[in-house]
C-alpha cells in the first residue's frame, strides 16, 4: 500500500522568470505515465501543492513549478539537501498508445509545458515524430526550448508579445501544422482553443484541489461521459469527452 514519501532536494534553481526546476531524489517507480502529478506538503500551509511531473529517471524526479503565491514562493526558497513530503501516484497521465504512428502535436502553455516534456521523451523513444508548440507570455518566461529540441522534437515557440518565436497564441501556430493527434496542457482558454480546432487528442486540466486523490470531490468537472474528478479521473481527459460549456 502507498506510504508517505520523503524526497531530498537535489536542485531547486530558477529556469525562467518566477519558474523553478526542482530535482528530487526518491522513489520514481510509481510513475506509470507522463502527465501524472505529486502533491507537496509545505510547512505552515494546510493544503498540499499539486505539481505535475516533468521528467523522471531512475530515482530522480524533475518538477517545474511557477511561483504564483506564498506557498510556491516558500518552496522556491528551499535548498538542496532539504526534504519534501510528497503524495505520489496521482493522476491518470497521458496515454501515448492512441497516438502511435500518427502525426503528433504537443501544445503547451506556461506551466502546462513541463508534463509535455516527459511525454515528448516517451514518444521520441518510441520513434514517434513530434511537433511541439510551446506558448509563453514573453521571452523571459520561456524555458525548455532546447531540452525539447534535444529530444528531436520540432519546436515552435509562441509568445504573447512576439519577444521570442511567433507572436500570438499557441493555436495560431498549431492550426498551421499538419497533425492528426494532439496532447495539450495549459490554461483553460488555451485548452478550449486547442479543442475547438477539432482534432483528436488528450487535454490535461488544472483545478484547485482539496486532496489530490479523489476523496473530497473538490475538483470535479462535467464531461460527456459523466462527472470526473480532475485529480483521479484526470488530469488528462480525452478530446471526445471534454465539455467547455459546463
Amino acid at each position, binding site marked *: 500500500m502507498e506510504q508517505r514519501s520523503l524526497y531530498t532536494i537535489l536542485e531547486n534553481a530558477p529556469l525562467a522568470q518566477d519558474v523553478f526546476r526542482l530535482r528530487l531524489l526518491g522513489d520514481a517507480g510509481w510513475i506509470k505515465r507522463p502527465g501524472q502529478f505529486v502533491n507537496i506538503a509545505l510547512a505552515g500551509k*494546510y493544503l498540499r501543492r499539486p505539481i505535475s511531473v516533468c521528467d523522471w529517471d531512475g530515482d530522480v524526479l524533475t518538477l517545474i513549478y511557477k511561483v504564483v503565491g506564498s506557498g510556491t514562493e516558500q518552496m522556491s526558497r528551499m535548498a538542496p539537501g532539504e526534504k519534501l513530503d510528497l503524495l505520489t501516484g496521482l493522476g491518470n497521465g497521458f496515454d501515448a498508445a492512441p497516438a502511435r504512428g500518427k502525426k503528433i502535436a504537443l501544445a503547451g502553455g506556461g506551466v502546462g509545458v513541463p508534463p509535455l516534456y516527459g511525454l515528448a521523451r516517451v514518444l521520441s523513444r518510441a520513434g514517434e515524430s513530434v511537433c511541439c508548440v510551446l506558448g509563453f507570455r514573453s521571452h523571459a518566461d520561456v524555458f525548455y526550448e532546447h531540452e525539447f529540441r534535444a529530444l528531436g522534437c520540432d519546436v515552435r515557440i509562441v509568445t504573447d508579445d512576439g519577444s521570442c518565436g511567433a507572436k500570438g497564441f499557441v493555436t495560431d501556430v498549431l492550426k498551421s501544422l499538419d497533425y492528426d493527434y494532439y496532447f495539450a496542457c495549459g490554461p483553460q482558454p488555451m485548452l478550449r482553443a486547442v479543442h475547438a480546432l477539432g482534432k483528436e487528442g488528450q487535454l490535461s486540466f488544472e483545478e484547485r484541489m482539496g*486532496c489530490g486523490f479523489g476523496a473530497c470531490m*473538490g475538483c470535479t468537472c462535467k464531461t460527456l461521459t459523466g*462527472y470526473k474528478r480532475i485529480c483521479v479521473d484526470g488530469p488528462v481527459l480525452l478530446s471526445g469527452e471534454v465539455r467547455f460549456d459546463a
Partner: protein
Amino acid sequence: MPDLSVRLGTLELKNPVIPASGTFGFGYEMARFYDLDLLGAISLKGTTLHERYGNPTPRIAECREGLLNAIGLQNPGVHAVIEHEIPRLRQVYHGPVIANISGFALEEYVETAALFDACPDVDLLEINISCPNVKHGGMAFGTQPEAAREVTEAVKRACKKPVYMKLSPNVTDIAAIACACKEGGADGLVLINTLLGMVIDPRTGRPVVSTGAAGFSGPAVKPVAVRMVYQVYAATGLPVIGVGGVATADDVIEMMSAGASAVQVGAQNLVDPWACRNIIEELPHKMQKYGIEALSDIVGRAHRA
C-alpha cells in the same frame, strides 16, 4: 493494553476514530493507503435522494490551518450509493458504516433515510441538517429548533436504526438546537459541521470559491467544535460524535473529554490520507502517558470537577 473501544448507544466501535463524511469519498478509494478495517467506523459521502453535480469549481480555498469547501453535495443519489458504492466499499471494509443524508425538503430526508434504513450494510443514520453549501440545503433545518425537531421526528418515525443529527455551528444557541433534536427522538448528535467562511484573493479582490461563502474546516475550527460538544453534552446527555479540526490523538482525547463518545476526522484526511490510521496508532501511547486505561472512561470528564 489500553482499551480503545467506545459505544454509540448500542453500537460498539473498536476505537472512536471515524473518517468524516465528505473527506473519505465512499471509502473504497482510500484502501490504497491502509487497511480500512483499522477504523472505528466510516461515514459515507453525503447522499441525497437524487444525483447531484454540486457547485461549479473552484470549490476549494486554503486558509490558515484549514480550508473552505463548497462541494455542494455532489453524489450519485441514494439508489446508486446502495447499489454500487456500498458494495464496493464492502469489498475492502467490514466495520460499521454511517450513512450521511442530506435533503432539500422533509420528505426527501425521510425517503432517503428510509432507503438506507432498509440497507443491511448501514449501521447508523447521520442526518445532515447543516450543509452550508447549497441553497435551502439543510442548514435552514439546522438553525431553527422547531425545524430541527420536525426533521428528527419524521426520520425517526420512518427508521429503526439509530438516528444521529449532524448540527451546524453557525447558530447562536447550539444547545437549543440539540435539545430540539432530542425532543424529536434523536439517538445522538454529530457536531460540528463546517463554519461558514470566506476567502478573498487579495490580487483580484474576489472570493476564491465560486459560491462566495463556503464551509470552513480544519484544525483552525477545533476550539469552536470542542466548546459546542461541551455545551451539547451538558445540555442533552445524548451520545455525541465530535468533529471539527481533529488531527491528532491529543485532539481525540480533548474532544472526548468535552463529551464526545466517538470522534470524526475530516479535513485532515485530505492533507494526510493516513491521518486516521496514525491517530489510532498514536492513541494507546497517549493513553499510557496520561494514565487512561479505557478511552470510554474519559467521555465528558471535563464536566467533572
